[in-house]
């Protein structure tokens, strides 16, 4: 069996507005709604909508023989909800054909896998739930942000319950090996790994309209011939690319949609290839070998590493400073903080800070709101400074944090005591009511109440509270009052 696995990446970040340092502490809204909406609308009109329409038509025409896979980042889905519900509908329509697989990734298209396994897992689970909610499908194949992968990331992904993962068929990792087979993770062999054929993928994604390319123009027939010419033993050709390739990176005028439309026809006519989703590739093919990736790889730039996101000092500082706040953000349990924390993690912010664009410009400058990496860094750090002020206010750190942690415990215990007091009241009332009606005292409830009070922690404040409440609320019987307030005299007795 020889098959083609088409997979498209869909992502758009929430870009920040120009956030000056004098906004720090004064203005907590970080996003450039106008730019975000207009870019998303533009890409939707030029790419997502026409491409989805075309794919839907192709799927119905080829009756179960044409299949594709998507991963749509959580941030992209959120933006579709805000600005382009029509795009969301068209993805849903594709999902309903049964020929489209949706993959899991990190919710925020983040680099969490490089830093924090808890955050990584959480985002993957959040994304999985979001995909289920919107497309009705449960993703069981994983692709990390920008196809970032290493042996360890793969092993972690297996632990999350995934059995298949996608990554780049980086030359420096594969050496003489071909990406056109099914591989497995080096630590956890039960995780199957699909590798991108970067030559053929990039022919479409990057070179399609390049007139100085020796193979220009690229037609579906030519592409099918290339596929046919691959060694007969090779089993799968994994074509992974940005979905914006269709209509945005390569404009409609270049003929990219016609190419896409003609591709399955040319393939079926000239070759014996089929189309498969990543799940089907993993199910139908045999693993030929493990792929060893000790250092993280990605699908970006010539180096296929992470230097575009975490290459320079600025990127590292911003990245580390952000994740330093993580624990306290979660501790705050503040909805707004959690949301901003998610948006701050979007990998694009770090990409904008890359100084690599001096040599590797074009792709980096794509939709980049900043003209230099320094502006991107300063803007991000200004936002992060404000975010940190908010986190500090919600959950103070250091010495202040210790005090606030202790006072929080006291506050919680006070609340518990107040709750129990109420309970005592209630029980007393019902007891006296029972006494009044039945004419005989019931020992049980009173006893329980006393026990409960006793379990509340000792402490001056707690004691005072208990005393006051007891005095003011408990009118009778006097016996109970003295018992509940007189903790110093021994709690053990009241239990008996």
């Amino acid at each position, binding site marked *: 069996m020889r098959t083609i696995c088409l997979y498209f990446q869909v992502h758009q970040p929430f870009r920040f507005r120009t956030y*000056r*340092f*004098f906004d*720090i502490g004064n203005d907590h809204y970080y996003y450039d709604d106008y730019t975000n909406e207009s870019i998303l609308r533009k890409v939707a009109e030029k790419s997502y909508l026409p491409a989805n329409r075309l794919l839907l038509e192709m799927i119905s025409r080829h009756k179960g023989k044409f299949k594709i896979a998507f991963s749509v980042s959580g941030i992209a889905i959120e933006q579709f909800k805000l600005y382009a519900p029509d795009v969301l509908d068209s993805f849903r329509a594709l999902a309903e054909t049964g020929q489209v697989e949706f993959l899991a990734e990190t919710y925020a298209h983040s680099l969490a896998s490089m830093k924090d396994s808890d955050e990584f897992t959480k985002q993957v689970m959040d994304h999985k739930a979001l995909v289920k909610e919107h497309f009705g499908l449960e993703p069981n194949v994983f692709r990390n942000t920008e196809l970032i992968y290493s042996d360890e990331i793969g092993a972690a992904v297996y632990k999350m319950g995934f059995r298949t993962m996608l990554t780049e068929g980086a030359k420096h990792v594969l050496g003489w090996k071909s990406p056109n087979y099914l591989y497995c993770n080096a630590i956890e062999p039960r995780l199957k790994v699909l590798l991108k054929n970067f030559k053929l993928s990039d022919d479409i994604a990057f070179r399609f309209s390049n007139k100085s390319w020796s193979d220009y123009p690229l037609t579906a027939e030519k592409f099918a011939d290339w596929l046919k010419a691959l060694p007969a033993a090779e089993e799968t050709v994994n074509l992974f690319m940005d979905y914006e390739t269709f209509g945005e990176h390569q404009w409609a005028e270049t003929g990219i949609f016609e190419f896409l439309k003609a591709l399955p026809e040319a393939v079926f006519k000239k070759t014996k290839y089929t189309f498969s989703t990543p799940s089907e590739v993993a199910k139908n093919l045999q693993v030929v070998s493990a792929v060893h990736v000790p250092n993280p790889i990605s699908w970006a730039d010539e180096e296929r590493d992470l230097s575009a996101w975490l290459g*320079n*000092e*600025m990127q*590292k*500082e*911003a990245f580390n400073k952000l994740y330093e706040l993580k624990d306290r953000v979660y501790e705050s349990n503040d909805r707004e903080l959690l949301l901003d924390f998610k948006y701050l993690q979007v990998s694009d912010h770090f990409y904008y800070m890359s*100084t690599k664009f*001096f040599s590797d410009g074009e792709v980096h400058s794509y939709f980049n709101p900043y*003209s*230099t990496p*320094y*502006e991107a*860094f*300063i803007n991000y*750090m*200004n936002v992060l*400074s404000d975010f940190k002020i908010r986190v500090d206010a919600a959950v103070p750190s250091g010495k202040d944090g210790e005090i606030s942690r202790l006072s929080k415990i006291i506050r919680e215990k006070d609340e518990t005591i107040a709750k129990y007091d109420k309970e005592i009241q209630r029980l007393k009332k019902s007891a006296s009511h029972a006494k009044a009606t039945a004419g005989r005292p019931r020992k049980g409830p009173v006893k329980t109440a006393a026990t409960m009070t006793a379990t509340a922690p000792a402490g001056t404040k707690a004691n005072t509270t208990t005393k006051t409440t007891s005095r003011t609320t408990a009118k009778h019987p006097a016996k109970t009052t003295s018992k509940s307030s007189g903790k110093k005299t021994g709690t053990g007795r009241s239990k008996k």
Partner: protein
Amino acid sequence: MKVLMFGWEFPPHISGGLGTASFGLTRGLSTIPDLDVIFVVPRAYGDEDQSKMRLIGAGDITLDTKHMRFSKLLGSISYIEVSSNLVPYHSPEEYESLVNKAENKKKKLIHTTMGGKLVFSGGYGKNLYEEIANYALVAQQIADENEHDVIHAHDWLTYPAGMAAKGISGKPLVIHVHATDFDRSGGKVNPGVFEIEKKGMEAADKVIAVSNLTRNTIIEKYGIAPEKVTTVYNAVEPLGDQEKIALRRGIDDKVVTFLGRVTLQKGPEYFVQAAEKVLRKMENVRFVMAGSGELLERMISWAASLGIADKFHFTGFLKGDDVFRMFSISDVYVMPSVSEPFGISPLEAMQSNVPTIISNQSGVAEILKYAIKTDFWDVDAMADAIYGLLNYPSLSEVFKKYGKEEVDNMKWENSAKKVFSLYKDAVLT
């Protein structure tokens, strides 16, 4: 190949970026084999070496020729000083007041050295244009006596000299534009200066611009054919170890520095505005305005009226080692120039490991990667960049690390090679 070069200042007597640039270029040219440079300089009046120059009469000028040998470099250049009162960066009006002042103080000296023996134009005029014309006359003489293949003139004061030399020898003329009057005047162009500049450019066989910004001005404002105008960027002299005179910082506060003439062209008011914005948000920072100029007093009173005078300092004019001392205690250098044909001082700051913010309206912005660029009028962006550099350590680390490397790779030798190939073109055509 012999180059007859007309400059207007030469070390150690340097009043601005032009002297630095023409000296650097000459040094760069001296590394090219078979290339000799005769450098002609009008020397500012009152200089202590005045006695060395003897001017006997028109058509019979004895000039003092010195040979300077640069250590470690291949060639040597001839250096000719011409007694003159020419001082760059002064408008004709300023020049007049300068001469009057000098006359009042040293009247006798003027009389003997100029009134008596100077015959070639009937004595030094107080008028700058006359002075330039005198220089051109001397240039004629020099061109006649010294064999050369190319004439190279730096900036407007020397254009007439270059043209006069060309008139005598018929050799190709290369005009080097370090600045135009559009940059110096901040829009209020002096028609007399403009006229000289335009004539010089028109007469030239090749025009060198120090940046594309300047090149565009030459093409658009002076109507010069684009194919005649080539951009050759300036470079910077490598910093010798002995020059690293670090000053011990007396304060813990961060220091943000403006260094340059306090004139309209340099945009000092935008620096004051940015300082005020930063000081509103930050405590431990001080701003320094180093330099003098016609706007200095206004800046001082403005800083005071904004209530930031306790954090905003004025040093007056700095030169030589003091410049490097200033850089050594600076955390950020800002050049908010409204119009800067090139701008060598940011390169000097970067050599001293000082992160730099420059305006998009400077020629140097075309070649620098490791500098933050903002529009001169965008005070918010400038303040933001200052704040960022002071508060986010990795940013200044990146600048220190790569900025120095970047500047160290800008060598006068490379600029000189481009100039040399222009000479060859000029000689051939």
